Every structure is written in structure tokens, then in C-alpha cells.
């Protein structure tokens, strides 16, 4: 399943896109959690491959990564868990570049592909550094999602939108991942700028946690990515069903926004 094709298809049906995130290996039953997310209405899933030094993540994803690593999670174990899981939606890996670099671009891309993942987000690879990876990933049919930030200037944003595959990831605020009580004003602004630059699906992430926030963002973007707001209850012991229910609420929030 190709990510971008799928998202374009859903968007063309007037659907706002929902991409929940789960840290691979965060619990024994993490694949069940992923499945519950799908059942709750996810259009694709972002699968975090935990890294020891998640410098772009806030406390929740840091903790999720640390917990997963402490359980012995490795990229290989995440891949193994996914192989044959057949979650029914496109899977996007999200990890830091050192795991990619250490494995080797080609090897890593092939490992992703063979476990059913079709795209990758590598947040510490900025435009200048990511070209090589993008090319080798593409060879393995892995789409590389590039990110744009509120401070990204127009010329750079154009290049990002041009080169990104799958979707364009709008980092809605200047900061790390994490739920926040208020939606950052920068989120809608960036979404609007990105939409003006590209026809590719534009998904916004960082700081989106409630159905209302999701709905508000989706007014100017094609969809949202929700991570910390889902991983917090997982860390606190919530059942996969209740996480699925949270996703469902987000889904409902988004569906209210759906424009014909």
C-alpha cells in the first residue's frame, strides 16, 4: 500500500486524515494498540522506532521511548512484531537518523519495506542532509515524509513540498512533541502556508491532543498526527480498547470538519 496514494484517495472522498502514533514496543500489546487505533478510525499509523536520544521529543514520547528500550525493543523487534500483523492501513516509520545510518540506508529501507512499512519520517534529517536517504529509500519503495516548521522560509518550504513523499508533515509549533492545553496559533498559519505551496496531503502534528484541536487544525490542513495524547494513557496503563476509543473521538472531531 502506498501512503501518498492512499491519503490522496481518502482526501478526495472529503475525509480529514487521522494519523495516530504509537511507539513500537512500548508494551507487550503494542500491536493490539495499533490495531485498536485502526479500528478507531486511523487512516494511517505512525510507528515510532524508539531511539535513546529523542532530542525533538517532549517528556511523553521520551518516556515512551525509554520504556520501550528498557523492554528490549530494537528496530528489528519492531519490524518483527509488524511482519504479518496486517493492520490494514499504511504504516509510517518515525525514527531518528542514527538508527537509519547505523543500519545503512539500503538495509534499513528494505527492513522497513519487508515489515509492511511504506514510508518514513526522520525528523533530524533536514533538507540538505536527507537527499541520499530519500533516494535509497525510494529504491525500496519507501516514501520519505519531509517536515516543515513555522520558521521555514518560503523557498525552502517549496523545496520541502516538492521533495516530500507520502504527505508533508507540518510541525505545528516551535517546540518538541507533547500535548498542550492550547493549540498554537502557528499551527493554522503553517497549514495555510503549506496548503498554498502544495497539492500533496498536508498533515499537521505537534501539540494536537483533543478532538476539538484536531477539528480546528483540520479546518486548514488535510489532517492531523496525534502522538503524545495517545501515548500518555498507554504509559499510564490504559487498555488498547480505551486507546482505540480516544482515536475514535479524534475521528469524530475530524469528521465534523469534513467538507463535502
Amino acid at each position, binding site marked *: 500500500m502506498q501512503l501518498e496514494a492512499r491519503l490522496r484517495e481518502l482526501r478526495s472522498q472529503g475525509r480529514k486524515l487521522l494519523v495516530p502514533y504509537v511507539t513500537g514496543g512500548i508494551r507487550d500489546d503494542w500491536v493490539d494498540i495499533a490495531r485498536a487505533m485502526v479500528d478507531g478510525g486511523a487512516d494511517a499509523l505512525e510507528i515510532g522506532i524508539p531511539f535513546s536520544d*529523542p532530542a525533538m521529543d517532549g517528556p511523553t514520547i521520551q518516556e515512551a521511548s525509554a520504556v520501550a528500550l528498557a523492554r528490549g525493543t530494537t528496530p528489528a523487534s519492531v519490524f518483527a512484531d509488524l511482519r504479518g500483523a496486517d493492520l490494514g492501513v499504511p504504516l509510517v516509520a518515525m525514527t531518528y537518523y542514527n538508527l537509519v545510518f547505523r543500519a545503512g540506508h539500503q538495509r534499513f529501507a528494505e527492513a522497513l519495506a519487508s515489515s509492511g512499512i511504506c514510508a518514513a519520517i526522520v525528523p533530524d534529517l533536514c533538507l540538505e542532509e536527507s537527499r541520499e536517504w530519500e533516494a535509497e529509500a525510494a529504491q525500496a519503495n519507501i516514501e520519505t515524509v519531509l517536515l516543515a516548521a513555522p520558521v521555514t522560509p518560503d523557498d525552502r518550504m517549496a523545496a520541502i513540498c516538492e521533495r516530500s513523499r507520502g504527505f508533508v508533515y507540518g510541525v505545528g509549533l516551535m517546540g518538541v512533541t507533547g500535548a498542550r492545553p492550547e493549540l498554537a496559533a502557528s499551527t493554522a498559519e503553517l497549514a495555510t502556508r503549506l496548503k498554498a505551496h502544495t497539492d500533496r496531503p498536508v498533515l499537521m502534528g505537534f501539540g494536537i491532543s483533543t478532538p476539538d484541536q484536531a477539528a480546528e487544525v483540520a479546518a486548514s490542513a488535510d489532517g492531523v498526527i496525534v502522538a503524545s495524547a495517545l501515548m500518555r494513557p498507554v504509559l499510564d496503563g490504559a487498555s488498547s480498547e480505551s486507546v482505540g476509543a480516544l482515536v475514535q473521538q479524534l475521528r469524530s472531531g475530524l469528521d465534523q470538519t469534513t467538507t463535502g
Partner: protein
Amino acid sequence: MSEHSGRFGDFGGRYVPEALVPACAELEKAFSEAWQAPEFRAELDGLLRTYAGRPTELTECPRLSEELGIRLLLKREDLTHTGSHKINNVLGQALLTRTMGKPRFIAETGAGQHGVAAATAAARFGLECVVYMGEVDVERQELNVFRMRLLGAEVRPVSSGSRTLKDAINEALRDWVASVESTHYCIGSVVGPHPYPWMVRELQRVVGDEARGQARDLLGGDPDVVVACVGGGSNAAGTFAGFLDTDARLVGVEAEGGAAVGRGVPGVVHGSKSLLLQDEEGQIAEAHSISAGLDYPGVGPEHAHWAASDAVRYVSVGDDAVVSAVRRLARTEGILAALEPAHALAWIIAASGTDELPAGSTVVMTLSGRGDKDVAHLIGLE
């Protein structure tokens, strides 16, 4: 000095999220321009001289030299204001911060020396200052925590990961990405995304440039060997920069438990590609060193390049040898070295009389900082 590519052979680069790209670019431009501007250089030189106490001496060690059968000269960065080479870097970055019009200055620190230096420069320039420091280091370098606070800086203990330097850098990056428009991140070593490794090396080359001139005055020529400790590698980079075009053999000394060059493999963390202690999968390993300033699993990318190109030889020493080196220098020369540069000394002590450092060798070693911050810890070991 023209603009720099940000690459050192296969190493270096700028591995940062898009949110930080404009700030890195702005800094690169600001530094490139400033470094070519005579007024900036004059202002920095003035500060280094009248505020920070440069030039620092190159001190003979008569008693220890005699015991070791070599001629040992110490480049006395311990005599600078705040007590380590870190001040050279922060004053330059504080000036740039003023140039860029940012009111806030953040830093990570391991041994606390960079944090103290950053807090100092921030006070001197009226900048708000926050310093991130791993909880482990907050404990073992308590004196420096107090100093930072008295200087008006906020010290934020970091409880993630190994709770040492690498985690403090992560936390500083997290702050920076959320505050980049008002904040300059003052990195304390030759690590991080371009332009940091280049910029910090240039700001530290005053150590090597001075030492070379002083060694020529004292020795009538260049020393046989130049030695410096390597954590991130800024004092070593600054030192070696002054001797790269001489015949002196250059030796970088790592902590055994943090020997990124000695036992690391290529990897990317904290914004650049370099050698890194990590596992098979690419998870960063925790370094383990008695010295907070060398307790870091990475190393500056230029060192990785120097190692690959055999421009510098890298060795490592263990904690015990380091502690005895501190004691030995204190008792023979009356100089209390920080644990970090004591690594360099420990290697010199071990190598003296061997093929590495034959009798009669002339050796310049950078004494990157004073040991006041470490004495409580050392006494605790007794």
C-alpha cells in the same frame, strides 16, 4: 578565514530538524561575517585580554619534568577567568548573540565549566541565561552549580537518559527548538550542527596560537609532542589548530569510558556526523568517566576526521590513572588540574620513557581547567 562547508572529510554536517535550520544558517552567517570583521576580532581580543586574562602562560614544570625525564610545558587555561578554556568560546558566542539581537542565552554543561562560562558571559552582556545539566553532574559538580546560580543563571537539572552531558545537550536542543527566535544556544564544544564545530574551534584556536608562539620563545622551536584531553574536543581542537602545520606530534587523550574515537563508530547525534559510542542498532551508549566533562559518548566531527586522516593520534586513559595524575601534579608543581586535563597528563606520565614519549621529549600540554570543582569529589575518594 572564509566560510566553511560544515564538513570535515566524511564527518560534520547539519543534522537538525527544519525548525532549527534557519537559526543555524543565521549563526553561520553571523559568525562568518564577524570572523572576517576587524572590529569584531578587536572587541573579542579586548575581552579575552582585559576580562578573561589572556594570554595565559605556558608554564614549565621543573619537578615533574625531572621525574619524568621530559620537558613538560603546561598551557595554563586554568588561569583564565572562570577557570577553563570554555571562556574563550562563550565570549565569542555572547558577542555574536548581541550581534544577532537575541536576549536569551542557553547552554548545556557537563563539568559545569561551560555552564559557568556561559552564565558569566551572559551576565557580562546582560543576557538571560538557562543552563541544562545532567542530574549526575549537578551532584558531582556542585560548586559549579552554585557559581552559575550566583551569576544569575537558572540551572535546570536533566533527569532523562544517563543524566549527564549528552542528555543535557538533548534538553538544550529541546529548549532551543521552542525558543529559537529569541535564544542563542551556546554549545560548549566542537560538536553540534554546522557552524558550531567550526566556529567553536576557531574561537578556541587562540589556545593553540598562543601556545605555539610561547613554545617557540621557550624552546626555540616547536615541541615534539602536543597533548590535550578530548571530551567534545574543543580545547584539543583549539590547541591542535595552532600546531597542525608544524612537525609536532598531536595526541588527543580520551576517557577510557568515553573514547568515541578509540572505540566509537560513525554515527549521527546532536546535529553532526562523527564517531560515537553506540550499540549495534545505533542506540547511543552511556559514557562512563570520573570527569563530567569527558563523560560524553561522542566527539567533535573534526576529531573524527583528524583520526581518519592520521593527523592526530588518539589514546585513552582510565579513571585511576587520572586521579593519580591530579595528585601528582598538585604535589610536585602546586597546580590543581581539573579531572579533564588530568587525562592528558595521565597519558604523558604513562608514556614518558616509552617510544611514545622518549626521554628528553619536549611536550606542550593544554591544562584546560583548574580542579577546584573536583576537589570535593576527589577527597571523597580517599
